[in-house]
């Protein structure tokens, strides 16, 4: 094994590596490990009581009413993930393709598509709450204005439409991100390859499905993984637009809200419980880590070197 002598070079390397390592240890590794530890204890407020083993995990997964809450929140996260996959990533790919083809006004549209990403989530949430307002919201007013008044409804106020409405707001907010990543991926495709395809077909569909899509696979890996992590950590928009209880009737409840409520408590859900909250956090963390790992390795395998 080569010995790292404390020469000038060795000192430099040490001096440069130690601060970030310390930072990561203090602010990332330590909290995660602590959360793990918290999950195995009984808590009373901020006071740690007895070691209870897997009791907390058992409670959130199998004991009512926690069990139903967990399942409901998880189910909603799954819906959010698949809906955003289509609305945000699917639309992002199509937008990227259109921008890449340099249609008229591409420069303007490139900015227009990315601009919402820069907006604060709070502002987007508030904006869409106004849009969806049953009486004064621009959505219902527009529907009435074009003779589709029968479609107007309290978007955020009923179980059937609340989650979907928040998902649309999220897709609008973040669609610029996958667009940008896909666009960068498309711009890496050598122009002669596109010329070669044009010599063989004029079908946009064939070009997209057989050439462009496979060649932007590296971008897809990044975008899919981040969307998955984002969808299961979703918190801000449902918190602001649906409230901490995931109202109405838990229809906008997601794991993030549920964890927050359980760990820190709120008016309707009662006392805070760090033990159950930490158990939930650990379960969410492990689930995301495993699935994200699988997605990444699976998609990596089909990436192509240009």
């Amino acid at each position: 094994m080569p010995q790292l002598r404390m020469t000038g070079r060795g000192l430099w390397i040490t001096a440069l590596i130690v601060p970030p390592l310390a930072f990561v240890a203090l602010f990332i590794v330590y909290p995660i490990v602590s959360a793990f530890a918290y999950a195995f204890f009984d808590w009373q407020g901020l006071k740690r009581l007895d070691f209870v083993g897997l009791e907390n995990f058992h409670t959130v997964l199998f004991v009512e009413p926690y069990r139903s809450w967990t399942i409901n929140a998880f189910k909603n996260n799954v819906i959010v993930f698949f809906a955003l996959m289509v609305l945000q990533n699917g639309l992002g790919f199509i937008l990227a393709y259109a921008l890449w083809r340099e249609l008229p006004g591409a420069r303007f549209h490139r900015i227009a598509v990315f601009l919402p990403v820069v907006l604060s989530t709070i502002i987007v949430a508030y904006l869409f709450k106004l849009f969806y307002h049953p009486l004064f919201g621009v959505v219902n007013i527009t529907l009435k204005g074009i003779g589709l008044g029968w479609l107007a409804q309290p978007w955020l106020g009923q179980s059937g439409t609340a989650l979907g409405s928040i998902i649309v707001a999220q897709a609008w907010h973040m669609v610029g991100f996958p667009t940008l990543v896909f666009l960068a991926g498309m711009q890496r495709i050598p122009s002669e390859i596109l010329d070669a395809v044009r010599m063989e077909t004029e079908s946009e569909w064939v070009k997209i499905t057989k050439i462009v899509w496979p060649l932007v696979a590296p971008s897809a890996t990044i975008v899919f993984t981040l969307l998955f992590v984002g969808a299961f950590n979703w918190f801000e928009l449902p918190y602001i637009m649906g409230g901490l209880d995931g109202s109405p009737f838990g229809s906008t409840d997601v794991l993030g809200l549920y964890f927050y409520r359980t760990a820190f408590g709120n008016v309707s859900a009662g006392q805070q419980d760090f033990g159950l909250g930490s158990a939930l956090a650990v379960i969410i963390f492990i689930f995301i880590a495993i699935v994200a790992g699988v997605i990444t390795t699976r998609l990596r395998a089909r990436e192509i070197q240009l």
Partner: protein
Amino acid sequence: MRGHRGQVEGILARLSLRGIKKRFKTTDVLHGIDLEIGDREFVVFVGPSGCGKSTLLRLIAGLDPISDGDFFLNDQRMNDVAPSRRGIAMVFQSYALYPHMDVYENMAFGARLMGLTRDEVEKRIADAARMLRLDELLKRKPRELSGGQRQRVAIGRALVRKPDVFLLDEPLSNLDAALRSDVRLEIAKLHRDIGGTMIYVTHDQVEAMTLADKIVVMNAGRIEQVGSPRELYETPANMFVATFIGSPRMTLVDVTRNGDRLAVANGGSVVTGALPEAKNLKLGLRPDAVKLHRGAAGEGLAATVVYTEYLGDNAYVYARLADGTLLSARTTPNDLYAPDEAVTVTVEPGSAHYFSAEDGRRLTP
């Protein structure tokens, strides 16, 4: 559907370019190209970088729109026909293989899109693979191939579509020198075997001379001359073609006619044979048209040796004439000259070229 007819059975592929112009925004790149290309001809577009030869090829392929003029393929106007429907296949400089498909799929992709049956696609790929020695490589991805192999796949991909016209855009420029002459021979053989009309773009005059039935010399968006390699070398239409074709380049000297002698300003005079009428001329001398004699005393043009290039089978001597022109002369390897040595230059009778001093056009005696 066009383009899947065999060439060997005697299908015509005549191209006719009439007044073709290309404008990028406000810049004119091609200023009206008129050109006829016959069936099964091997035509090479040659010229310096930026002369418009690749642009012209892309217009023929349909990859860029034609700004003005008409392009006919077998008397059918092609200006507005999509590239994939022109019956034209193209081999790109970077090969442009699809990186995510193996060799077989690269060749099958276009063939399938033509609506051929599975058996026909199989058969065509098998034929192309045999002809191009790709049998062992069919399951490989492009990144696992060498430059020469990629080149052959790119040609194979064009072959399986059985196009009427093959376009090749500087296909050898990414290969190393040794491979280049091999692939050059293969392309010549391929043209003999399949007999399609081929249009080949290069800036390398050796490729042009060795491959072409017909060379189109281009410069600054115009055609300077069209002809066989021999015509271009022996009777260049103007000074541009004269200096572009042939290596080392032809030397051009300003001379004044004085009876049957041509004089260089304060540098002696030579007899070169029959002369054109004009008084002031450009005298064009290829390296093999001149003879060097040691010493400054003799009858001819005075010159001073600058350096000698020894090439094994022969040697080139570069010498400066009295008016400052650098002249190249071919000598035998046994006949080397030292730098700064004074020499006298004479011209082999009948081997000089003459050009107008005003517009650079060829003058005949």
